[in-house]
């Protein structure tokens, strides 16, 4: 008996130790889980409209669900069981391509998906009806009144009725809608409010119990809502004398809460005055629950409003405050402009997605990709080029403050421009992104990130290490130029250039050049604490007597010249930034 007890205690002790080890690792690591979808053949270079995660079915217990366009142009559904089911096979077989966009409504285990087909002369909106398992998808065609133009959007009333809306250009520009019972079209109509295409970016189908289905749309004067049952309309917002010019309008929500953001600007100047008007409705046919105005001293014409957050909040891009964006010296001038993804909530000033970062505080160049939120927190996913090669970074914001930010991959592992986020539970968000394999192929991945633990765990070489390395690399590069060691010279080109200027072409051009380099020397300086350097070279060379078929005078053949340009530090080496045209760098940051 004693032995049994001792054994049991031993097992308990081992189990407890294992648990503590795992817990400690978990505590330091913000990646809770990682899933790679090897069988998902998503199309190459997918755009944000080619993928849609199904919020309701993404759960922490290993349940993943999303809609995506495959590399065969088919629309696929990855169900929670892990199967990839094609939803539009008969249409794909018949039309081959011309499909775009996707939206869905999940209702009582039924999954209703809409997409767009434009394969002239066929131009239709398609509704596909299936279920959570993706069995037996059936489609119905809509939009036979004309030409669908913009992405279709769908909302349901929970009782098997749906409203689908899209932009239409069959009889001038308009917004079209179809009312469906299940998958049977009951009514279709085009509202013709638009004077120019710019008015057609906003149309939102909406439902609430009181009024039933409604459609929010814009014309060049105002934002209007129409109650579908009787056609009654109401103006939500008037644009004023300048109309919809210099404004960006966003209407969000499907049921119960409708948020309207009107973002106005006087000019495209990043330091112009930008203004926000925010309206929130429970019932857009009645008075708004909230109306707020806010003003900003900088920004860009686009904002990405956040829907689930308490109060009004959005992302945009911005330069540093005007007085902080004046270059203090030549180095800062050469480093150029710094664009950040910024967050603003409830009219307060901008907060950078990488707020508080002092290391490499010079180059930002961030591009917003996606976000998801709860009432209290937001996870934003963006493309960051502070380390030159584009990488997806994440930033977790809670109660208006940046809690942490960090990269999704190791340093200098390039991440393609694609991202999608859904909230899983508490501070855990799921980020879908494309992982680039060694052989260049990309594969879809999903990582569950605990925002509270998010940070950057990777070290980067110190400034003195980078300076030392620059001197060594420039020395070697110069020697290789004189020796005409083509492989060596090529190894110093930036990776974007190497991708687009294959070694074979470079070698061919070099051989056609038949140039003899007599002397070549370079000196360079790392700009501030960044991964960018400014390098000046001087060289003496001799051209052949005939260059690309053109004869050159003997006296003109020996020449002396100099150059200045950028070098960048990538993957432990400095590299020359290649120009594909005078003054135009291939790699951008």
């Amino acid at each position, binding site marked *: 008996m004693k032995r049994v007890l001792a054994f049991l205690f031993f097992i308990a002790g081992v189990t407890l130790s294992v648990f503590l080890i795992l817990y400690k690792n978990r505590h330091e690591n913000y990646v809770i889980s990682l899933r790679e979808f090897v069988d998902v053949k998503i199309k190459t270079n997918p755009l944000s409209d080619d993928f849609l995660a199904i919020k309701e079915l993404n759960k922490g217990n290993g349940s993943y669900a999303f809609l995506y366009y495959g590399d065969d142009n088919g629309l696929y559904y990855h169900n929670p069981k892990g199967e990839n089911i094609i939803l539009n096979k008969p249409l794909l077989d018949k039309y081959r391509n011309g499909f775009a966009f996707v939206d869905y409504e999940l209702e009582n285990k039924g999954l209703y998906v809409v997409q767009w087909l434009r394969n002239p002369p066929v131009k239709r909106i398609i509704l596909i009806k299936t279920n959570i398992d993706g069995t037996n998808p059936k489609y119905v065609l809509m939009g036979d009144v004309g030409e669908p133009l913009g992405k279709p959007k769908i909302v349901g009333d929970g009782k098997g009725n749906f409203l689908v809306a899209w932009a239409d250009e069959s009889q001038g520009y308009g917004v079209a809608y179809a009312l469906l019972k299940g998958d049977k079209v009951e009514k279709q109509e085009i509202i013709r409010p638009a004077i120019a295409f710019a008015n057609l970016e906003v149309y939102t189908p909406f439902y609430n119990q009181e009024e039933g289905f409604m459609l929010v749309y814009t014309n060049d004067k105002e934002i209007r809502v129409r109650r579908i049952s009787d056609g009654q309309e109401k103006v939500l917002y008037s644009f004023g004398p300048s109309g919809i010019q210099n404004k960006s309008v966003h209407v969000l929500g499907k049921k119960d809460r409708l948020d309207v953001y009107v973002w106005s600007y006087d000019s*495209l100047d990043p330091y112009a005055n930008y203004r926000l008007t925010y309206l929130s409705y429970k019932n857009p046919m009645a008075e708004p629950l909230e109306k707020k105005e806010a003003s900003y001293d900088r920004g860009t*014409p686009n904002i990405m409003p956040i829907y689930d957050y308490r109060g009004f909040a959005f992302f945009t891009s911005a330069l540093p405050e005007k007085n902080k964006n004046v270059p203090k010296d030549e180095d800062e001038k050469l480093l150029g402009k710094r664009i950040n993804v910024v967050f603003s909530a409830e009219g307060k000033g901008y907060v950078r997605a990488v707020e508080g970062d002092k290391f490499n505080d010079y180059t930002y160049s961030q591009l917003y990709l996606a976000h998801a939120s709860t009432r209290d927190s937001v996870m934003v996913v963006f493309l960051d080029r502070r380390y030159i090669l584009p990488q997806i970074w994440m930033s977790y914001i809670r109660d208006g403050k940046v809690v942490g930010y960090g990269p999704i991959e190791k340093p200098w592992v390039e991440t393609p421009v694609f991202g999608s986020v859904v909230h899983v539970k508490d501070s855990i968000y799921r980020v879908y992104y494309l992982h680039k394999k060694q052989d260049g192929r990309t594969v879809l991945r999903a990582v569950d990130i605990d925002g509270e633990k998010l940070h950057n765990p990777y070290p980067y070489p110190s400034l003195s290490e980078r300076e030392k390395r620059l001197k060594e690399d420039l020395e070697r590069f110069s020697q290789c*130029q004189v020796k005409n060691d083509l492989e060596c010279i090529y190894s110093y080109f930036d990776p974007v250039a190497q991708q687009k200027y294959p070694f074979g072409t470079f070698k061919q051009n070099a051989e056609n050049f038949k140039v003899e380099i007599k002397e070549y020397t370079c000196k360079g300086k790392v700009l501030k604490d960044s991964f960018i350097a400014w390098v000046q070279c001087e060289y003496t060379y001799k051209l052949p007597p005939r260059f690309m*078929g053109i004869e050159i*005078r003997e006296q003109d053949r020996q020449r002396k010249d100099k150059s200045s340009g950028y070098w960048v530090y990538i993957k432990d080496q400095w590299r020359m930034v290649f120009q594909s045209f005078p003054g135009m760098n291939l790699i951008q940051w």
Partner: protein
Amino acid sequence: MKKKAIAASALTAMALFGASQQAKASAVMVPAVAFGGGWATLVSIVNKQGVNSLHLAYNYKQIGGPASASCLHADGTMSTSANDLTSFIVDGSTDRPVPLYGDTGYGGGPASFAVALAPANIGLPHLGFLAIENSTSATGGDLVAEAIVYNLSQRFLFSQRSIDLNHTSAGSATIPLTSTLTSGTTTTFISFAPGDSNPLIYAIGAHDTTGTQVNVFNTNYNAVIGLSKNNNTLYDRKELPLSDSASLTGTCIVIQSICAPQNTPTTGLVSYNTCYGGTAFKNVGGWFDLINTVASTGTLVLKVESNPSYGSAVTPLHRLDYSR
């Protein structure tokens, strides 16, 4: 004066390259001459007829500097003779050709250029255009030119052939009227860019100080260029209409990517968000109408397609009429 006839094979080679013209051009323009910052240009001129003196004029500016900077100018004359083949290298240190085959003197013109090619910082890249004409006769002469722009450190080069100009009198070579983008007129820009290749707009402000004729030789170095998309609409190759408000301004010479770079997302002719952030324009290309937004300026717009995998090409977007 010693003359040497061009070997027939050399002329044939130039014809195959595309240098043969349907009409006689007594004035031509090499649209993009680059020097400095590691770049240099080898220019070759063939004088197919008995012209004795050529007038060369450069308008250029530093690339990467402010778009509002004026152009710099250099011009002068050189002597030539029938069937003369001349080549010279533009790298900021030499700006005028010396005949290959023994012609001496400078056709009666000054011994050196009136204003020398003298950029402030030769280490930085400069870009401009070179106009070449028969400097003594109004309509006589038949010129053809080609140029090879090269970057030594990169072993990278691209070539281009000259554009014909209207030549009504000496010192008055104009871009054919039907092709000049005057205020309010449009030209259609089409770009079918393979993925990651970002074509460039290269525009030359082409009006003289009187504003009455578009004289390439007397081009106002402060000529303001303003280009905008007509109603800010554009279409990608999937027939998807897109819209944004990016436009382009500069002085004398302007070169800009179609897609705005990420770090200044509102420069370029299509804003960064519309080009990259969820639309297909960058990857598949599309078209839009460009209009000149500056009154009293003529603008010549050229499209540069630059992709290292296949090289670069400079193409006028305007229809250029040949005239006899």
